[in-house]
């Protein structure tokens, strides 16, 4: 039987994947709001609002779940990340606050152009800042630069040099590009309007190539910036095939967009996100904050993990049918495009 700590770790990775697939695309929607242009700018914005309006708050909760799981199951990890990454996390929060509030303010404020444009700008800025900072934090954790004294839990940090490096920012922009790609692919599926679909197809292609660019940059920078991850990615027999598969899925997603196979593109883009995050999780294992904090030395006591697992199982029984209901109401093909 696998240890409970590993199981919770798996749930966290799964929750992060779902966060990226849902909220990530919502952030991506904000990016395309920023780049809305041409004769159909307003229609592009409307489609984005319509797509994310009913679901963004539910999608957002995955992040809270990840944070809670982190501090319940691995308290020293949460403490160490909160100390070393205080600044990027705080900036990310500002982004999250601005994105969410500007989005609702825009739909409830007067519908004149200048007022709407102001809220749109704020909404877009928040949607861009939050994923970049999320990626920076992830990159900093992956880089192995956060050192923690295993005995005292004291974090050796100057609060800056752990994250203000090329590698974390490459991951930050990669994250943003991925979310923008995902959003554009979703949006091609969410309209019956052919012109709009073509608009988002072009955007998806642009974002897809940007994703490839930052993937390459991150890979190159990882050699010096994240040696632990690089070795993790090349350690096991499965890692090479896994990376090749991830690459093929990514190319396939892009190709499907190019060939206007939008439903296939959506499936592949989702698989691509899952493969990247899952691969990161596998490469990190058994470290949470390498090389000091591992699953084994930072997990909460067995009793806590057991109760937490039960709570997760019960919660999932309520959550997944509700989510299915939500998406059936707002995202089923029959209801699209009206």
């Amino acid at each position, binding site marked *: 039987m696998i240890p409970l700590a590993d199981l919770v770790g798996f749930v966290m990775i799964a929750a992060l994947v779902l966060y990226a697939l849902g909220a990530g695309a919502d952030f991506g929607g904000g990016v395309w709001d920023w780049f809305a242009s041409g004769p159909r700018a307003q229609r592009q914005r409307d489609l984005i609002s319509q797509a994310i*309006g*009913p*679901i963004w*708050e*539910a999608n*957002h*909760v995955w*992040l*809270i*779940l990840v*944070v*809670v799981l982190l*501090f*319940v*199951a691995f*308290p*020293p990890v*949460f*403490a*160490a*990340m*909160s*100390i070393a990454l*205080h600044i990027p*996390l*705080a900036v990310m*929060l*500002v982004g*999250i*606050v*601005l994105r*969410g*509030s500007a*989005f*609702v*303010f825009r*739909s*409830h*404020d007067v519908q004149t152009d200048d007022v709407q444009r102001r809220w749109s700008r704020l909404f877009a800025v928040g949607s861009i800042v939050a994923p970049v900072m999320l990626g920076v934090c992830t990159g900093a954790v992956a880089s192995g630069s956060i050192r923690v004294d295993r005995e005292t*839990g004291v*974090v050796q940090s100057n*609060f800056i040099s752990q994250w203000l490096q090329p590698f974390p920012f490459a991951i930050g922009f990669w994250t943003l590009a991925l979310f923008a790609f995902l959003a554009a692919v979703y949006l091609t599926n969410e309209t019956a309007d052919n012109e709009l679909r073509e608009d988002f197809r072009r955007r998806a292609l642009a974002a897809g190539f940007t994703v490839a660019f930052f993937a390459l940059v991150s890979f190159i920078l990882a050699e010096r910036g994240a040696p632990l991850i690089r070795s993790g990615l090349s350690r096991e027999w499965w890692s090479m095939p896994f990376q090749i598969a991830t690459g093929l899925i990514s190319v396939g997603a892009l190709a499907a967009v190019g060939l206007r196979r939008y439903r296939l593109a959506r499936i592949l883009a989702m698989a691509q996100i899952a493969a990247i995050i899952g691969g990161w999780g596998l490469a990190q294992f058994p470290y949470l904050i390498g090389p000091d904090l591992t699953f084994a030395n930072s997990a*909460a*006591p067995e*009793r*806590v993990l057991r*109760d*937490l697992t039960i*709570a*997760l199982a019960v*919660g999932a029984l*309520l*959550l997944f049918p*509700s*989510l299915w*209901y*939500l998406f059936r*109401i*707002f995202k089923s093909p029959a*209801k699209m495009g009206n």
Partner: protein
Amino acid sequence: MSDLFAARSQMAMSLAFHIIFAAVGIAMPVMMVIAEGMWLRSREEVYLTLAKQWAKGTAILFAVGAVSGTVLSFELGLLWPEFMRYAGAIIGMPFSLEGFAFFLEAIFLGIYLYGWKRVSPRAHWWAGVVVAVSGMISGVFVVTANAWMNTPAGFEIIDGKPANIQPIAAMLNPAALHQVIHMTIAAYAAVGFAVAAIHAFMLRRDAQNAFHRRAFAIAFSLGAFMAVLQPLSGDFLARQVFHYQPAKLAAMEGQFTTESHAPLHIGGWPDEKSGTISHDLEIPDGLSLLVYHKTSGEIKGLNAFPRDQWPPVAVVHLSFDIMVGCGMAMMLTGLLGAWLAFRKKNPCDQRWFLLLAILTGPLGFVAIETGWTVTEVGRQPWIIYGIMRTANAVTPMPHLIVPFVSFTLLYVFLGFVVIFLLKRQVFQSPKSFREERRTP
């Protein structure tokens, strides 16, 4: 400003901001569900319009509540990493369950706000019910976690580290039930009164507007009912504080000396240096009476505790008295409204009563803020009562004044926008619904 003080200020500011939206998220769905339920039963259009109007306001407030709540969940670590390192595993159960409750709330609120035309009226109403129930439950879980900081339970301390953690026992700590009841009632009462006040204001301009009359009736009934219950739960909670946190109770009451016929000090200025309270209204035996329900009974004064374990007395005492004063005013207003209704006089027709409702409108939120101050400042200098000091929990991060000022400015900005947007909505009152004038 020291980093510790900046961290405490940022936490206090974040909580003070979030708690307003959290209370709205708990109570507004109940009122929407009542209004929509009345529409389903009577098919009177005015109730549907009301439910939709309230839903619009709730959409704005809920979004700000959701994002400011996210900030708080991170701030636990950003500001108090040592607390989370120590307590994260112990208090994780309520937070995990809250995560799911909040999930359901967000999912069904999405359905409620955007699904008017996509699901059947009955399914829509049930979505509202789920929002109301999960919103309430999510508040309950968060408050149990706070109660744990007041009355830590469910673990042992071995070599200075927590051991034998029992998450369920920690969640069901001694203060949990008392605090949960008090806070939940407070949310309903505060929101009921605040919404009633807005509609009372409109009714004073447009007395026969059926829309505002129905809105006032629902909001005021909810607020009044809860305001009448609240003193009972306050008594229940205060006597619990007396048993588990005697220093906090002494600070709340401005009681410095240990006495067996302790008087009740209302108002006044407690002076920590001299250990006396001045300019207060003193009711002989009052405090003993409240705690023991008889005139004699020993109350420990602050002097019974080491000086470095006192909370800031003046803040706690005055906050407590303001909270009680607001609660009393709301209770009396609620009773008065009930009496008017009992005498078959519609409170909506009494201009003086509408004015009273406007004046008492903000008091529920004043009581929530001051009551929260009593809980939090009254627990000082501890972050975990009797176990960990706040000063030992703070992050080593320097210059904490920067995030404090940044988040304060951000929240002030959001606060202004929210008020502005709500105001615009409130003044769009539907004119088509007229009440037929009854014979005077």
